[in-house]
């Protein structure tokens, strides 16, 4: 009797702790948006050429409203031309990878899935390596890596349509197979590459960096990223229905084939757009959804916006570190793992009910 009541008390306690963690979607989004806004301003201020936050706000203000405000020399150049594209890119890429990861985890009903599951990263890597070998021009590399990513996922998707039975499982298996295939192609490219010049470039590309992003890149890739994120945001509640299981979703009147198709296309477009300007950035798409679930719970209506904000904040923060932590810039893919893994493990140990 005593032990059982103790047990329920414990359960109750644990439950209360879980519930307090479970912020409402709106308040969590507001808090995160505020954090992101502060970090956004702060990110302009730091770097090799420090700018005071006041000057940052003044500059942005003057550009937005085309005012003529006198500022210290070079400030406008640093803020607008150098840092602005990079900061926007970090937020867009972070949001894209996180939204794609969250959507895929819901779609595949599996918290271990990352945006790479259908071969996006290997396809992009192969495309980029091919671009580096045949031309080396930034734009060509981007186009080829985008194409490679789309091709890998398209192949996975069509192969899974041929597989009989469980479509979700078929998609995962096809994705793993196609991923390995494109990894082999990537190795072939590395093997064929000139070792003094091309091979290092390929290697650095695969580590990920937002160093080279310019305004043109933002315009070209930002649009598909925003479009894909918007569509996923609009239909995010349906991910809840899909997470109940394929047959139940069908019994609830959902056209699961169509829904899965739309999710796969949107996730692939945003991931490929992100990867083609940033290179391979692992870990974000896997871990941010979990942190999101710890904050607002698993309902995708709250989770997807929170994931987007968390992802943007996380990657912007990591990119800031990349810029300032050492005299040489550190590839962002390295830091996302070095910072992300311990943080995630800490949350796992401390947070109570992230998944399952």
């Amino acid at each position, binding site marked *: 009797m005593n032990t059982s009541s103790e047990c329920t008390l414990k359960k109750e306690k644990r*439950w209360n702790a879980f519930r307090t963690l479970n912020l409402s979607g709106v308040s969590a989004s507001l808090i995160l948006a505020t954090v992101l806004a502060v970090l956004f301003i702060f990110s302009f201020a730091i770097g090799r050429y420090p700018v005071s936050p006041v000057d940052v706000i003044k500059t942005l203000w003057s550009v937005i409203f085309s005012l003529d405000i006198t500022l210290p020399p070079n400030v406008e150049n640093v803020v607008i031309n150098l840092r602005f594209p990079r900061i926007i890119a970090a937020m867009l890429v972070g949001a894209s990878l996180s939204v794609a990861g969250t959507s895929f985890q819901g779609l595949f009903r599996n*918290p271990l899935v990352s945006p790479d599951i259908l071969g996006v990263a290997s396809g992009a890597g192969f495309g980029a390596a091919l671009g580096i070998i045949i031309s080396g021009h930034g734009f060509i590399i981007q186009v080829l890596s985008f194409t490679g990513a789309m091709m890998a996922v398209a192949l996975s998707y069509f192969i899974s349509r041929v597989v009989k039975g469980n479509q979700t499982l078929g998609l995962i298996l096809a994705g793993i197979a196609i991923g390995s295939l494109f990894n082999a192609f990537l190795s072939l490219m590395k093997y064929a590459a000139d070792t003094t010049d091309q091979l290092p470039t390929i290697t650095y590309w695969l580590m990920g960096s937002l160093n080279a992003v310019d305004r043109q890149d933002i315009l070209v890739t930002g649009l598909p990223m925003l479009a894909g994120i918007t569509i996923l945001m609009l239909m*995010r509640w*349906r991910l809840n*229905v899909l*997470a109940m*299981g394929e047959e*139940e979703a069908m019994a609830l*009147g959902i056209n699961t084939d169509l829904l899965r198709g739309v999710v796969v296309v949107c996730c692939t477009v945003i991931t490929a757009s992100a990867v083609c300007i940033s290179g391979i950035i692992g870990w974000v798409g896997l871990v941010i959804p979990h942190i999101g679930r710890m904050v607002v719970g698993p*309902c995708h209506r709250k989770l997807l916006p929170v994931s987007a904000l968390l992802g943007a904040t996380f990657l912007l923060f990591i990119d800031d570190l990349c810029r300032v932590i050492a005299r040489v810039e550190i590839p962002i893919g390295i830091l996302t793992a070095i910072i992300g893994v311990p943080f995630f493990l800490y949350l796992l140990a401390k947070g109570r009910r992230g998944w399952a």
Partner: protein
Amino acid sequence: MLEVHNARFHYDSNQHSGFREVSFSLRTGQVMCVLGPNGCGKTTMLKCLLGLFRLQGGSIWLDGQEISQMTRSAVARIIGYIPQMHQPAFPFSVLDTVLVGRAPHLGFLQSPGETDVQIANSALEALGISHLTNKPYSQLSGGEKQLVTFARVLTQRPALLLMDEPTSHLDFGNQIKVLNLVQELASTGMPIIMTSHFPDHAFLTSSKVAIMKQGTFLDFGPPEKVINEYNMQQIYGVKVKVMDVDSSVGYRVCLPLKSDFNSSSEQKSNLEEFYGKRS
């Protein structure tokens, strides 16, 4: 309400799977119980009634409409389904789980609004489980989970209910509670089809019983007529005794006969050989 004419369905060229020559009709307030051994095609039949699989012959009519001509969400607005096992991938709250029942009533880009939440809350209230609203579904007991599934299907506001073994995985008390719930729903006029492994459950709730073996209906009719010693021997291969309980209870029961185990010669002799006879 529901009419099935000579329906036939097989999984990929395997003539022994699925079902054939199934015909029946169901009217308001009727509860039909489908009995049959594992793998006889009960669940497959339910899935065809839901429109998840397309029939290879015959037709299913729902309120005068052929089901293959209807969109999936149109079917889901009429038929509610309680599956055998239900395990969401994430620890959704009970409210989120129940709200999913609104899916057939919402457009592709819509998500549930105030009215939908109200419907879900009143369904939870009607089943007496409002106190569970914000708990994670995955932390509930088996009986509570089944009640939440009922709340979800009520939130769907269907005109017809299909249940695949609604009492499986439940303890004795919860089984009877669920059966009472089925009766209560039927008394509001809701036609219900449920599959079961217990002939007694048919006596408790049903106005019609179909017994199924190897994909066909062996018999169909009121439980008193269909559940008899011969039919049970036919579908389950065990001897039973069907008898009236004294008048204070007022219905029949179907009892497996213990002696049958001893005379089931093959099983016994093999086991004796395996273990040796103990004194």
